[in-house]
Each structure stands twice: as C-alpha cells, then as structure tokens.
C-alpha cells in the first residue's frame, strides 16, 4: 500500500509553512529516519524524516513552495514491491484527511445550555430528622467545628488536621482546641509557614488515601495554595481518568473580619464556586457548621469549607445527636415569607434575618434562604421560593462582579422569568479593597439596611 508523506507541523498552532528543500528525489529509496526535506516557518527550520521504508514515487510539492498547509500531501511513497508509476499516477487519496475541528463539528452538536451550568442540589436531599425530645446544646460555631473534627477523627483514623498553629497553640482562632491532647502530634500536625507547601502536602497525603483537614489561618493566605486546590485537588481525578481522587477538606475563616484591612478580608466563595471538581460550603450557624463539616470530611471529593471569623464566637442551638450529618448542596429556608425572597450565605444570613424582622414591621413578608452550599447550589429551593414571592434579593459579603448574586439572578431569570415581578436585586461589598479605618470599612461592607432597601426596591415600596 502506498504511503502519503504529509506536511508536518512544528507545533499545534502551525497552519502552514515553506517547503524549503528536498533532500531526496523521485526514485530514491528511503529508510525510517532518513531526512527527506527541510521546512521552514517564521519561527524555525526543521527536517522532515521518513517514518516508513519505501521509494519516493512522486513529489507533489516542489521545493521553495510557500504557504504549504499542514497535513497536505507533499509526496507519495511506494512500499516494497509496489509499482512506482502506479503510485505516482494514483496520487493522494481523494478525500483529504479531516482536521480535528471538522471531525468534532461532525459530532452531534449540543443545544445551548439553559440554566444548567451551576450544579444544583441532588433531587432528594433533606436534613436528617431530629427525633422529638432531642436535647439542644448552646454551642459556639467555633466549638461546633471543633466537635465535628473530633467526632470524625474518633470515627475514622485516616482523618487528621494540619496547618499553622493547629497543635500546640490550638489554632489561631482556637478551632482545634484540645485536639492535640486527644489525638497526638501524628494527627494534629503543626506546619511551616507555607500555605502553598502544606496544602501540597495535604493533597499528596490525600492521594495516599488519608483524609486531611487542612486549616488555613485565613483563606486570604490560601491564595498561595490555590494552585494545589484547583490545579491538583479539583482536577486530578478527571485528568487521571478516575484513577486518583483527592478526599480532602480545606477550611478556615473567609471574608471580612473586623479592622484587618484588604489582605485579611477577602471573600473567596465565588472563586471556588466557579470550579468543577470542588464542593464549596459556607455555613451560618453552629448546627450547620457541625453537620456540614462532618459531611465534608466524609465526602470523597475535595471540599472548600468557608467559615467566618466573626461568627466563631456566636452561639446557636445544636442538636445533641450521636451522628448529626447534613447533606451537602441543600439550602435551608430559615424564615418563611410571601413577598420577597432574600437569598444569603454565611454571615449575610444573620443580616437577612434582621432585615426580615424590619421588613415585617413595614408590612413586607420576607422569606430567608440560607444557601449553606455554594457548589453544588440548591437552585430548586431558590426557584420554588421565587415562584411564590415573585421577587428576589441576593446577598453576599464579597464583591458583586461575577458574584454569587449574579449567579442567583441569572438562575431566576433563566428558570423563573415569568414569575418575576421585578428585576433581581443584589447586595454586596463596594467594589474596592476593604479599607482599614472603622467608618470606611463599615461603609464598604453590605449590612442589614442595604438588604432592607433592596427588598423595598424590588417590592416597589418606599
């Protein structure tokens, strides 16, 4: 069978080149590795080597030709025993080799995706039933997180916690209090000051089937580690064809604390929420912090768990149950209402609840949805509520541009357009790095009043 010699590509981006010189002539015998020709692009010169054995039957592109397309047939090679003239006169096969672009165009083309880009919750998620008569214990968010880690570390000996100051110092925010005493220094590991480095260690340990909980002193510092979180933890299962997964939790405070300036106050919910392969959780109260952190530790995928420094010391009721695990990806309706839906997460849930109280006094009934999970996102709960209230205000602490509010607004417009009586509204931080001075900081951040105002606006109420 004759062999077509094609114009080679120096790189995937090369489209054409110059055939500078033929080093073989028609009738010459060639062996694999023999140099047949030289080609040139604007970047470099290269030699074309023979891959197969045979005799050059016909040269189709003469030397000096410019603009020769990659993969064009430049010569025909006759294999042993073939008739040279026959090969030469037959020429290249009629159908040109399809390029990959054409080939993929031949594939069935998908319809435009409508509103299915963000992961929704699974269809039948629900919180566990809390049996009647269950006691509730008043617990801080800090201790609820601690209890979740301690319970999971007792339950599964592959779970361990690592980070700066997590052992002897008990955590920069004391979230790992007494874990060192109970579990020892093999499972509560102080690390050097390199978020990039210890996130990489954790990812490596997860590949070896341990379940690390990597604590960042703040997610601002995890900017250094984001390469390991996204390029490795989130993508390796996929890139390895399902061979190597990464069951790991990255946790720590996220968003604005108080008077700590621009580099300690950044909200990353939308950054991580953008990435397939990750799950992203941002709880508000202590029960959710506990139940969702336990779920995150058990999850076989990488989970980014965004806490809030200003909630650590706040107390909430936590059910006194043996194994209180919540589903990841299920929002919670924190207050029912009929006039407007307030969608919030993390600390903004507290503001939304306050806003609902104020709105109630003015005769507006607000429903408050706590997203709890950023990825997957419980679209159904939001849509169901908007179908009832016909108005929505999305509240986040970070910058609004390309934010969670933008996603919520897009989902509502996509999937509940006919139910909306007003354009979706967004409440978020001013589009500036967070300033330090007290009054400037307060002016920059979203607050209860912003939510009240936005709700009134969508209700066309003054």
């Amino acid at each position, binding site marked *: 069978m004759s062999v077509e*010699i094609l114009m*080679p590509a*120096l*790189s*995937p981006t090369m489209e054409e080149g110059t055939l500078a010189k033929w080093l073989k002539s028609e009738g010459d015998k060639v062996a*694999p590795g023999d140099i047949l020709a030289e080609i040139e692009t604007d*970047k*470099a*010169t*290269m030699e074309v*080597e023979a*891959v197969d054995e045979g005799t050059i039957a016909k040269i189709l592109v003469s030397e000096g030709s410019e603009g020769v397309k990659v*993969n064009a047939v430049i010569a025909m090679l006759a294999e042993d025993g073939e008739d040279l003239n026959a090969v030469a006169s037959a020429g290249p096969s009629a159908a040109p*080799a*399809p390029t*990959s672009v054409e*080939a993929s165009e*031949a594939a*069935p083309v*998908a*319809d435009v995706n409508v509103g*299915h880009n963000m*992961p*929704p919750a*699974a269809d039948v998620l629900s919180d566990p039933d809390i049996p009647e008569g269950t006691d509730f214990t008043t617990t801080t968010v800090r201790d609820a997180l601690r209890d979740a880690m301690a319970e999971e570390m007792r339950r599964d000996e592959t779970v*361990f916690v690592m980070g700066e100051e997590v052992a002897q110092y008990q955590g920069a925010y004391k979230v790992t209090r007494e874990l060192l005493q109970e579990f020892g220094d*093999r499972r509560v590991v102080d*690390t*050097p000051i*390199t978020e990039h*480095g*210890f996130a*990489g*260690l954790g*990812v*490596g*340990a997860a*590949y*070896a*089937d*341990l379940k690390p909980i990597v604590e960042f002193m703040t997610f601002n510092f995890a900017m250094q580690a984001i*390469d*390991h979180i996204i*390029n*490795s933890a989130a993508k*390796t*299962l*996929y*890139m*390895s*064809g*399902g*061979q*190597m*997964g990464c069951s790991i939790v990255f946790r720590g405070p996220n968003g604005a604390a108080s008077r700590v300036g621009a580099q300690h106050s950044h909200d990353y919910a939308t950054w991580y929420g953008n990435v*397939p*392969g990750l*799950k992203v959780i941002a709880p508000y109260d202590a029960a959710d912090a506990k139940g969702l952190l336990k779920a995150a530790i058990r999850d076989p995928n990488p989970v980014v768990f965004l806490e809030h420094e200003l909630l650590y010391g706040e107390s909430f009721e936590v059910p006194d149950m043996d194994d209180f695990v919540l589903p990841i*990806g299920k929002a919670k309706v924190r207050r029912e209402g009929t006039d407007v839906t307030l969608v919030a997460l993390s600390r903004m849930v507290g503001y939304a609840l306050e806003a609902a109280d104020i709105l109630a006094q003015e005769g507006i009934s607000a429903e408050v949805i706590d997203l709890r999970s950023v990825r*997957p996102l419980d679209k159904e709960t939001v849509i169901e509520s908007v179908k009832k209230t016909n108005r929505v205000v999305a509240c986040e602490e970070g910058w609004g541009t390309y934010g969670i509010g933008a996603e919520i607004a897009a989902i509502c417009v996509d999937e509940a357009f006919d139910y909306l009586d007003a354009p979706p509204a967004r409440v978020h931080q001013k589009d500036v790095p967070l300033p330090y001075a007290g009054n400037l900081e307060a002016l920059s951040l979203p607050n209860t009043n912003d939510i009240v105002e936005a709700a009134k606006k969508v209700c066309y109420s003054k």
Partner: protein
Amino acid sequence: MPIKINFPTPSARPGETPDFSRYDFPEPGALPVPPLDITAEDTLEYANSLIRVLDDDGNAVGPWADYLGEEGNDDVLLEGLRDMLKMRAIDARMLNAQRQGKTTFYLQCTGEEAIGCAFQRQLNKGDMNFPTYRQQSLLVAGGYPLKDLFGQYYQNENDPLGGRQLPTLHSAKDYGFFTISGNLGTQYVQAVGWAMAAALTGTDNIAAAWIGDGATAASDYHSAMVTAAVYKPPVILNVVNNQWAISSFNGIAGGTAATFANRGVGYGIPSIRVDGNDFLAVLAATKWATERTRNSHGPVVIEWVTYRVAAHSTSDDASAYRPKDEADAWPLGDPVERLKQYLIQRGKWSEDRHKQGEAEIMDEVIAVQKESEALGTFINPQYLSPSAIFEGVYEEMPEHLKRQRQEMGA
C-alpha cells in the same frame, strides 16, 4: 561606581564551540559508599562531586560497583539495555508521528533513558513516582503496556484516560506513576505529603519526587525541601539536571552558583550527585537511596547529571539557542553506548546483536503503534463518546452533569 549584577549566559550559543569546561567530573570509582544513616553535612563531598561506576573503557570500577553486586548482573543489565532501546524507539517513532500530524505534541527523553530505566528497577510494588513529563522511561521500564501509551498519544479508544488529558501527561496508579502535572513543580511537595501518609498508614512504601533543574526555581521545590527536612518522610527527591530548560541553561535556575545537590545539604537533607548517563551508577545510587529511605533514615536528594539531547518538545527547535553538536561534546557520553560497551566488554553482547536487538525492539514498537493508529490519530481522530466528558469530575456524577450529558445526547 554603579553596582554590578549578573545575567547568566551559557558557555556556547549556536555557531560557537560547545564548552563544558565548567564541569570538572572526578574519575569513576573515586567516591566510597556512605553509611545509610549519614548526616546531611557529611554528604557535602557527595553533593559536590559525582558518583560514577563505568569508566571510559567500559569497565565497572570502584566501591559502588561492589556495592551493587549481583543486583547489577548481566541479565539485569541486558534487560536495562533493552528498556533503554525501547524508550529510544518510542521517542523516535513519536517524534515522526507528531511531525506527520498524528498527535499534537510529544516530549523526548533522549540521553536521559538510564535515569528512569535504572531507577524504576529498585522500586517495589506500591511505591509511587511523582514524575515530570520527561520520565516516561519509568513507565517503560515498569512494564506499562505500549498499547496504553500509544492510546494516549493518539487519543483513541485505547487511551486509559479516556481523552481527558494531554498525550504526554500520563497517569498509572498501578504502575506507581502519579498523574503528571502540567504546571511544573506541584508534584514535588505532593510527593512529600504522599510519603508522610505512606509512613503514617504503616506501609513500607516510599515516594520518588522528580523535578528538572529549571523547575527547582518553583516555590513547590522549596516547600518540599523544607517539609521533607522537617518531617523526614521516606521520599527520594530527584533533580534531573539535564542542562536545559527549553532555551534557558541551568545557570538561569541557579545551577552555576552551586550544584543542585549542594542545595539539599543546606536544607539539612543528605544529598548525592550521580552520573545520570551511567546505568550502573544510577542503579547503585538508587539502591542506596531506597534502602536508606525504607529504613527510616529520612529523605535523600539525588542530583542526576545528564544532558537533554533532544529539543525540549516537538514545539521547540533547539538549534536556535545551543550549538547543534553540543550533545556530542557532553563529557558523560551516551547512556546506551556506555552500557552497550560494558556488556560487549563482558562478552555478553556484540555490535551485531545490538543492531539486531534494536531492530527487534523497533519492530515491536512499530507493530503496537500501527495497531493504535488504525483506531485513530489526530489526523483521523476516533470519535470518543461525549459521555466521557462528564466522568471523573466528582467521584459520583452530580445531577447537573447528568443533565448536561443528557442535553448532549450522550
């Protein structure tokens, strides 16, 4: 007077005479075999010198040859030679296949075959390499099926990664070959974490981290060195010093200020420097390093001194930045030629048998390649099922991906 600073330049650029006079390698056999529990400080001599076994006449000389003993017997070395020839055959075929447009991209490891082929022989089942893209020789020596290799190059139904990853970035958990990272360096510190976990879970497995001279400038390298020095897990920290990072000679990564092994000593990790083109030296040094790490003596740094004979990749033209004949001037020679010479010297091999062996191996590689090409290549791609797009994003497919898959009709 203005203060001077330094912008390193290589010893020769195109058209100039290759010059490796900055290297002053010792005679083979000069260095003793250190005790397994040697301290970092006591390895300083090893970090600045070079462990070599094969001399210019093809003899194995010195204490490292004795230390290797039966583990370097003729059968082992003949197998090693075949592995290197197979690697070279794959490189040659894939370069040509890329030039014909059958794949988008390939990276050759020509000149560096001894490092991976000898190193892999000293690993156990369950050990894990965290390689770069130029360590495909670990897979070849580890018996990874050629069918899988070519399947990934051509992205057809034989691709074990289902068309989801670049042709040269392999993943083979069962062969102790961790997913190659495209953003350089990340695997280095992950290997340290993996080794910590291997120790914590009570196994006697070790990790092997790999990085090139250029990527030692990445922060992952430094955090790996610090954490390895701190926790002392069973990890071999390999630096393949092949002189070139695309067009940047290793001086751009600090390689002329100190040897790469010397850096390890500064971190407090025992460090050795080895002739990477000497199959027996690689085998012996790896034996020492694996024994050391497996016996809880902690991490070890190995700088493999070698030369990148091929261009960086198929997208690169090396003649634009270094003398065309620089590889011929490389003072440590060619790993295949040197092992061949040793085996001929021993009466176990001959020029004729070598030619015959090369041809047989080439035929074997070509046969698998042709079978794979029949299924599809970049020119004539096999249509892979669109459902593959959605697999492996999460351990279980979430609802929204099931929906997107359904919309695609897959």
